[in-house]
Each structure stands twice: as structure tokens, then as C-alpha cells.
């Protein structure tokens, strides 16, 4: 129970920090914000990696490996496309 409350505390505070920071993002950057958050939501990669333990049933490993692939699409694709877009905002002058 203590752990749950601690986790909920972290969740609530993080949502609050998210609101505070994101509210200040100008409309010009809303599309890169979305693709950048695509990349961050690829954080599930962490969960996928630790779920590939060899002592797990095969099915669990299969699920985890597919999850690694999906999350990697988000992480790599998300950061790269955001970088590409933001580069366009910068190259002037």
C-alpha cells in the first residue's frame, strides 16, 4: 500500500509538472511537441527490456520482444523526426 501511495504521489506531481511546462509551449511548436512526446511515450521500452528475462515463459518473451520493437519505433522515429522538424525552425539566417 505504501508503495502504491508513493507511486500515485509521483504520478500526480508529474502530471502537475507536465501541465506547468506544456502550457508555456507556443502553438508554433505544437507539432514537434507531439512527435517529441511520441518519443517519450516510448519509455515503455524500459518495461519491455526488463520483461525479456530468460527465465520467463516463451510467450512472455515474445510479447516483450514485440513490445521492444514497437517502443523502439517510437523512440528512434520520434526523436529523429522531431530533430528534423526543429532543424527547420533553426536554419534561418
Amino acid at each position, binding site marked *: 500500500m505504501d508503495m502504491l501511495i508513493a507511486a500515485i504521489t509521483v504520478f500526480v506531481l508529474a502530471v502537475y509538472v507536465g501541465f506547468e511546462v506544456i502550457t508555456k509551449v507556443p502553438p508554433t511548436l505544437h507539432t514537434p511537441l507531439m512527435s517529441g512526446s511520441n518519443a*517519450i511515450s516510448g519509455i515503455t521500452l524500459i518495461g*519491455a527490456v526488463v520483461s525479456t528475462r530468460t527465465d520467463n515463459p516463451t510467450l512472455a518473451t515474445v510479447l516483450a520482444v514485440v513490445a521492444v520493437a514497437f517502443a523502439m519505433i517510437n*523512440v528512434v522515429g520520434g*526523436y529523429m523526426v522531431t530533430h528534423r522538424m526543429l532543424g527547420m525552425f533553426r536554419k534561418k539566417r
Partner: protein
Amino acid sequence: MITYLIDLGWVNLAYLVASVLFIIGMKGMTHPRTALRGNLISAWGMLLAVVAALLANGLSYQWILVGAVLGGAVGAITAVRVQMTQMPEMVALFNGFGGAASVLVAGAAFMTAAEPDLQMTIATGLSGLIGAVTFTGSLIAFLKLAEKMPSGSLGFPGIKAFNGLLILVALAGTAWLAVDPSSQMAYWLVVVVSCVLGVTLTIPIGGADMPVVIALLNSYSGLAAAATGFVLMNNVLIIAGSLVGASGIILTQIMCKAMNRSLGAVLFAEFGGAASGPSADDVYGGKVKSTSPAEVAMMLETAQRVLVVPGYGMAVAQAQHIVRDMANILEARGVLVEYGIHPVAGRMPGHMNILLAEADVPYEKLREMDDINNEIAQIDVCIVVGANDTVNPAARNDPHSPIAGMPIIDVDRARTVIVVKRSLSPGFAGIPNPLFAADNCLMMFGDGKKALTELVQALKEG
């Protein structure tokens, strides 16, 4: 229980640092100058978190490598090849992959948990529910945005009741999971039902509401990751997931406000609701004046302030570069050229901004709706490129219009308005636009790119 090659404290510390880097990275997004660096900081955070995770004991490194190489290659190729006009569908698809990953990770974690307690079972059920809705909902959004399926509202009578039923079944499945944690069946029931729910929730939403849908699915993909964090009791998943969740919610609110619609009205849109109000013939009957590129070029000769108002049509016609060419010529003559951006112009938040950035338009020249509306009477020539509903004065003047109360860019208050458009066909809202019949409005009919190319030609000759 997961053990690590190094002390667990160090691993958790690495996760904490990664979380802080994500927040600093997102903070960088608050200004175009710092955004590129912010994105890199966020990417370093991700790398740190992944390295920490790889230190867990007994991982199948070869399989991780297979998954990572496959996913990484697909992601990299997509990121390099995607065109800026296709960003909405790419973001939609990526939202879906995030949801799918959460479903799979929660499933694998639940399957291998020795004695799942109540909080884990509930978190697992919610991961499955949110993740699966995000996955199939995003696939539908992707298909609609990529025009691989009809982009309007689809559905069947009673779809709302059907969705309500599905939500109840998914929640009942989660409750079953909580009561009987040994039941793998219950989890996959939740997932399958939620997959159907994702489809039936998304198909009735279409057209002008698409920006809301991708913002909302963006939020869901974050919430799914956070729910998976509760399954694994992993703080970095919870923090990163809730940041994304918060970001998506804020964008959703902004989009809803910009359309004067409540989120409920978008989500539970009446299927097949027909547009009402005056017919196109009543509005346009004999009052629409058309013009030619040569004539517009002459008008621009004497203009001092020009405002370009782009809409989704500019993206479709890929006209952003020729718009920039036109602006270059005018600016060389000392004309002040700016761009008025409606928050829901295009099909995702900020869509017009990246298209214009791609065409090298400095971001200082992009003016927000409220800001430019204050100065609109000083605009000599306003050029509307592929926008329709976002400049429809009926939103302001006709309380019975379906878009009544929606904030618009008041282009009708500029001295002269040129509308570049293929025909008088209605926009997403399906209603005629009295602007086209206004005294100070001239229609330059044609494909956006072609018409503007002719205009640029005429400007060069003039």
C-alpha cells in the same frame, strides 16, 4: 522480482536523472531557439534509462537486439522519409505503437508475476484497456488522415450505447482480474474488447475534429505508459507517461477551445448529423466575384500589409513553398507580409507552422489568431490559401450556424480578401461561407499551387 547487475539504488538514480532530463527537454520546447537542444536532452534521458534497464539480470540480449534493430530501423526510415504534410498520420501511427507496447509489456509482466496483488491487477487491466484503445483508435485515425478510409463520420445507429457496453465489459474484465489474479483469460478479454472499443470510439469522429482526436490519443499513449509504470512499479515510466498524458490533454483543450466545442461533443458526436442553415445558393447567388492572378498582382502593387491565412488546402496542394516565393517578392518591395495561423488550421496542432517552417518562413512572421485579429483592419490584402471554416464569418454573425461561436480569423474585416480555392465547395463543417460573397472578397479559383505559381509569375512580370 527484477534484480540488477549493480545496486538497485544506482538504477533508480539513473531513472530519476532520466526523468529530470525529460522534464528539462520538454521545457526546451517552450521556445523555438531552445527546442532542438531540448529534444536532444530528452533523447539523452532516454538513452540513460535504457542503459540502466539493460543492467537487469538474466535478460535475453540477443532478442532485445532483434526487436531493437527492427523497431529502430522502421522508426529511422519513417522519420527520414516522412513528408511534413504527412506528420498528422505519422504522429497518429506512433501514438498507436506506444499503446500497443504498453498492452504487451503489461501482459508479459502480469504473466510472469509470482503473486500479483490487487494494485498490480488493476493497473494491468487499465494498461490493457487504455493501451488497446490507443492502439486501434490510432490505427483508425491514421487510416482516416492518410485517406485510406473515408475521413468523415462513420458508424451505425446505437453506437454510443454499444461503446458504453464495451467500456462496462472492459471494466468488468478488470474486476475479474482483480478477483482472480491467475486468470490470463481476463486480461486478454479486456484487451480484445478494448481493441474493438478503440475502433468504435474513433470511427464516428471525423473531418474538422481530427486535430482533437490525435491530441487525445497522444495523451492516451502517455497514460498507457504511466499505467504500465504502475504495473512494474517503475517511476520513470510513471513520470514520462504522465508528462505525455498532460501534454496531450493540454493540446486537446486548446483544440476544443479553438473550435468552441466541448470534448464531450467531439467524443460523442452524433453520427450522421447533417449540417443545417442557409443553402449555398442563398448565400452565394450571383454575389461571388472571381479574379485572375494578373489582377491580384496589380492589387498587390499598392499593398503595404499582406496577410496570408493558410488552411489544410495549402498542405494538400503542397503550396507552402510557392507561398514563400510570393512573400519573398513582396518583401523585396517593402511590403510587410505576415501569416495568420488559426489553432485548428490543418489536421494537427501546429500543422501549418511546420509546413511554413519547412518553406523557410521565419517563425516570427507567424501570428496567432487573437493577436492578428486586433490588427486585421490594417491589412490591405489578405490571401486565404485553402482555409474555409476557420475564416467563416457565420461563426461570428449567425447564431444558428453549426459553427456559431467558433473563434475565427476575421479576414472579412481586412480591406481586400483574396481566396485561393478550387471551387465553392464547403469545408469540413459542410456549410457555405458568406465570406466568398462579401463585397471585399475576390475568389481566385484553382489548385493552390498552380494559382499561386501564376500569381508569382504575374508579380515578376509586373
